[in-house]
């Protein structure tokens, strides 16, 4: 056994990569349907959106690019599903330069196809991408049309019924930012703290730990932390809305719930490797101490 552990320390890392590949590929080919438990921050987010009234306007910002799409796409799409089902109107923007708008367009196309009754300009609108996140948010606090004079297709905002009666971002009921990097934080520290609009964030898992401080301080309504948070949110949607339960059960598209099988299996292997690596490390250290 000690010899085996010693060899473990010298293992070529490519064997680990291969194991990672197999443990993630397996559940994609043969889904396991492992359970997901809901955390408080996701539950609060879901409850807040569920309490919105038909006709309320919310803001959805695609603040991520293709590099984090598997984490952020499912949460942004689930958010739109819940809003459209509750007849809450959605304003879509993208503040992330590299691909935010492309992903917003793709997600909108997918979700509006599922809800054929929603009408562009009435139930939702796409304002497109704007550079300079903090400057844009600052301007949104005064005048939405100042930051986004037109929609994504170049038509003036005044043409769209959804924008009637909306002067600044103060007038929307909620900002949901699916975010990577710092832009999500700007929505909290600039829009919520200076303007007062409630914010829910869907960050990548890498960024999620820092947002717990904002939840504790009451600056965030809730958070969907990475793929796990998105899977929790999908679970709540499926429990609360039978139409979405069917959709999430039958869709051929990618959902966070499907991704969680691979996460769980691989995390098990990672935990095992951490334990074995530490045992081998301490044995090695004990041997060296003994030799001295």
């Amino acid at each position, binding site marked *: 056994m000690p010899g085996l552990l010693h060899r473990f320390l010298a293992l070529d890392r490519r064997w680990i990569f291969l194991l990672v590949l197999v443990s993630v590929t397996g559940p*994609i080919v043969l889904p396991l349907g492992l359970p997901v438990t809901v955390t408080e921050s996701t539950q609060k987010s879901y409850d807040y959106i569920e309490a919105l009234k038909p006709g309320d306007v919310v803001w959805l910002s695609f603040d991520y690019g293709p590099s984090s799409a598997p984490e952020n796409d499912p949460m942004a799409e689930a958010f739109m599903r819940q809003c459209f089902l509750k007849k809450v109107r959605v304003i879509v923007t993208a503040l992330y330069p590299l691909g935010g708008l492309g992903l917003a367009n793709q997600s909108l196309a997918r979700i509006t196809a599922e809800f054929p009754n929603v009408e562009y300009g009435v139930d939702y609108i796409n304002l497109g991408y704007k550079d300079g996140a903090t400057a844009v948010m600052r301007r949104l606090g005064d005048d939405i049309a100042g930051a986004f004079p037109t929609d994504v297709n170049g038509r003036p905002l005044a043409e769209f019924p959804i924008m009637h009666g909306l002067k600044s971002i103060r007038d929307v009921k909620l900002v949901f930012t699916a975010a990577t990097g710092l832009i999500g934080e700007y929505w909290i520290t600039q829009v919520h703290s200076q303007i007062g609009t409630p914010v829910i964030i869907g960050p990548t898992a890498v960024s999620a730990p820092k947002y717990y401080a904002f939840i504790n301080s009451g600056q965030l309504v809730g958070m969907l932390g990475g793929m796990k948070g998105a899977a929790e949110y999908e679970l709540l949607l499926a429990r609360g809305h039978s139409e979405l339960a069917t959709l999430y059960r039958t869709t051929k598209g990618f959902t966070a719930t499907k*991704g969680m099988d691979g996460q769980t299996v691989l995390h098990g292997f990672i935990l095992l490797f951490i334990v074995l690596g530490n045992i081998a490390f301490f044995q090695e250290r004990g041997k060296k101490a003994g030799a001295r």
Partner: protein
Amino acid sequence: MHFVGFGTWLAALLTIFAFSFLYKDNPFFRFAESLFAGVSLGYYVGITLNQTLLPNLVDPMVQDFGHNWDLIVPGLLGLMLYVRAVPRIGWVSRYALAIYVAYYIGVDFTRRIQGEVLPQIARTMLPLSSLQSTTLVSAIFIVGVYSVLIYFFFSKEQNAVTKPLARLGIWFLMISFGAAFGFTVMGRVALLIGRLNFLILNWIYPTIGLQ
């Protein structure tokens, strides 16, 4: 066998090129890396031009110059930044840069104070007088904040009181680093799952006629 689009094949092959680095560095990986950098830059330029410069600067001035003449100022400041390319008059760009930096300091200063410093300080001022279900959590929170702050206080040599507190601060830091590492692993695995889902469900299965 079903027909899989050119875009799917291209994306699948580029994904494999990128993954090939895990075995060892090779020309396919370098090709994918360079292509990604070039496409990203081109995309950034195009989207900024079409979604920011045209609707916010060019179109308003062309369509109604009388009401939008003041946009000349930010337009000129933007152009001044590019004067750096001409060394003889490169100094002109410094004025634009100074205004740009000053603006962001102003915006960011209030954002940091109002959005981060004050709310987080307020969160550490918790009532510990009455015993509630959250009192213990609040107490741990406060001990964590103060012990970490003591660890990062470098202006005075640590003594018998502050040394154990700083050590406790290290424990709090280590726990937070562990949580951050766990989340990072989860995030990276999520990206791998996304790519493998694409390769298997959108490329391999349709190609071999399984979907």
